[in-house]
């Protein structure tokens, strides 16, 4: 298995505040890797260390088999980056910026450039100052996607795009995966990560809290079940691993720890199932659980 980038025990402080506090992140070649965390978790700082824009205080970072700080220039030929907040030069047109960035990276696929401009409905004749946030982001996206880089690093690339353009973006990323490119996609939009990513790393406060495939992570979580039964669901709500059960007549809605799914389903079957809806946990729920830890800690004393 090839590793596109690997980071371990990364530490970076700005003055007294610690932005990264022992962060780990591994992205395999050819995968779309979701990099999730709330605002201020350290996503952008990690990416800037990977790009050699910041120097880590401690820890190891390897990018495409090289050192992101010392070999920055060579490595950057093989990757393309879209910042979360794209700044353009006020008097250069979008088309000029796309060409410039392409040339700096060492080449641009002309056909793909034109196709992407069309798909993203971007006017390349407008000056940088006239673009909205979303359009500035499209300029950087077109430049990155039209390059022949093997690794794409996208830092919250859709934060300014409307839902229609987000759809176009998702299509493009799927095409990139099919053509074998590696994508590191930082985001706090969970549905986007869920729709696109093979594996996910969740960070909080500069630390990695969870990492794995979406399936792996679901093991750690609960499945929601709604069942219509033949009789009243006596005792189900009190079973081990069942949470938030709500009973109305012969209908029950509950959450169950994935590890306790078997006994609960067996019990429901004994009562007699007339209808059943079961849903895997969404990333929202995954995410919220990490928040809950914090909330519990602060609320725990009050309770």
């Amino acid at each position, binding site marked *: 298995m090839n590793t596109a980038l690997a980071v371990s025990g990364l530490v970076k402080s700005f003055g007294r505040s610690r932005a990264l506090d022992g962060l780990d992140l591994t992205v395999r070649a050819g995968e779309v890797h979701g990099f999730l965390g709330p605002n201020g978790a350290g996503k952008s700082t990690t990416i*800037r260390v990977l*790009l*050699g*824009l*910041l*120097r880590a205080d401690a820890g190891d970072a390897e990018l495409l088999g090289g050192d992101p700080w010392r070999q*920055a*220039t*060579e490595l*950057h*030929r093989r990757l*393309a*980056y879209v*910042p979360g*907040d*794209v*700044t*353009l*030069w*006020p*008097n*250069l*047109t979008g*088309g*000029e*910026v*796309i*060409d*410039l*960035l392409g*040339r*700096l*990276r*060492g080449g641009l696929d002309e056909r793909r450039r034109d196709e992407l401009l069309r798909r993203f409905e971007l*006017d*390349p*004749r*407008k*000056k940088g*100052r*006239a673009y909205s946030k979303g359009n500035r982001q499209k300029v*950087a996206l077109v430049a990155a996607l039209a390059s022949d880089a093997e690794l794409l690093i996208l830092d919250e690339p859709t934060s300014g795009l409307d839902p229609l353009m987000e759809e176009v973006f998702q299509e493009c990323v799927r095409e990139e995966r099919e053509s074998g490119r590696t994508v590191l996609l930082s985001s706090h939009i969970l549905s986007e990560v869920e729709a696109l990513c093979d594996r996910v790393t969740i960070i909080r406060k500069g630390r990695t809290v969870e990492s794995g495939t979406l399936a792996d992570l679901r093991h750690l979580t609960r499945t929601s079940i709604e069942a219509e039964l033949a009789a009243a669901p006596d005792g189900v709500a009190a079973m081990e691993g069942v949470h938030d059960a709500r009973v109305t007549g012969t209908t029950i809605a509950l959450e169950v720890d994935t590890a306790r799914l078997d006994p609960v389903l067996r019990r429901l079957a004994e009562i007699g199932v007339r209808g059943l809806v079961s849903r895997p946990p969404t990333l929202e729920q995954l995410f919220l659980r990490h928040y809950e830890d914090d909330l519990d800690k602060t609320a725990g004393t009050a309770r």
Partner: protein
Amino acid sequence: MSAAAGTPALVRLALRRDRIMIPAWVLVTFVLIAGSARATTDLYATVGQRVRFVATSNGTPAIVALYGRIPDARSPGSVALFKIDIIGAVLAAVLSILLVVRHTRAEEESGRLELVGATGVGRRAPLTAALLVAGGADLALGLLSAAGLVAVGLPVEGSLVAGTAFATVGFAFAAIAAVVAQLTSSGRAAVGLSSAVLVAVYVVRAAGDSADAGGARRLTWLSPLGWGRQFRPYAGDRWWVALVTLGFAAVMVAAAYVLVARRDLGAGLLPDRPGPPRAGRALAGPLGLAWRLQRTSLLWWTVAFAILGAVLGGMAGSVSDIVGDSAGAGDLITKLGGGEALTDAFLSTELSFLGIGAAVFGVQTAMRARGEETAGAAELVLAASVGRFRWLASWLAVALAGTALLMAVAGVASGLVYAGQSGDGGETGRLAGAALARVPAVWVSVGVVAAAFGLLPRLAAAGWAALALFLVLTEGGPLLGLPQGVQDVSPFTHVPHLPGGQASAAPFGWLFAVAVVLLAAGLAGFRRRDLTS
């Protein structure tokens, strides 16, 4: 909510942001006005000296075009204001333009005004606040200038009239900038267009002043800078001219408010033209980018230096007439510039000024590297296979080559004009060489910015402070009688007094070496540090 709600808060915000810039600008103006007035009054102490000086000065077309005629030879104050009446007005005008654009259009362009505008701030509040801040700064500049003139020993009333002239010309340009800021959609374009207006009214005034007595001389009444001179401080004290400057400012401000009410946030009234959909061949690397971003600015600087050089060359021929038999003046210019011939001393002094002017372009260009970094645009380029060294070196290369070009253009232009007058073709090469002799000192100024940028990026603006210090030490040092050790801090002090003076290679070697060390320190420092914002 009234349309002006929130103005006091915006004024406080602007004053907080400009707490260094406004006092520094006003103080530099004060030093310049008081220092120059003192030097002139000492120089032409008797009526006889003044009359002779004014006769030649008013009889030299280049001087009349540049500074205007001196209205009253008998009044010491009137002679003392030679040059500085126009310089003070221009300084007030530039300060007004910068302040008004900075707090209106530039804020709007950056999107910060949107943030502010969504709070309890009225539609007219940002413009009102900017005008109040600029007007206040102009008033401070005028009052302090008047105080400086009084301190030199000139009559109080005339000094107040001079201060009023500076302040109200400042108001007029604040009002012009207020209108222009509604027309363009970028802050840079607003400053550019307002500056173009300033240059245009300067030219109109020059045309009017140069005209023979009669109708054409009334042209100066079409120029706000001409109004500044019509106040005639110490030579009639025409207070009533303030009605013209204030009336004009009021009309322009009213126009600006009408425009504010008619346009959307972020939009200008002049449309943004679409640009090329593809990048030209030159825009292929960091050097191409730095060149592209600075080339328009360099073009205008080059035009200005060509004109200044030509004017210098034109004035050079009549220098000995101007100074004439005033032994004191000869001494002073010799003290300022050194050298044997008076003409050479004059040219040397003026080329020294131009050197500091070129350094302003150099510092500005090198500072753009910092601007690119804080704006986030540097990140985009540095993440795209451009090394730190190459990126910074590109900006510095434009700064170094641009300043050398400016000095060469000024030298050749002055040489050509002077050669045309004196009939000695060798002057062109001699003056071009003398102008280029300032380049190593200019490069040291660029080096200061580079070193600060690489090692202490948050203090990169110290490059401007260093340049201001160099100006005061080099031009003011001999006049103020500062110890040589202090004067030596400025690189410009070490430039041999060319043309005419003794030129040895050693000072050039040293200045060049210092520049190289500073530039290398900056480049090495930048390779080692984090990108900051």
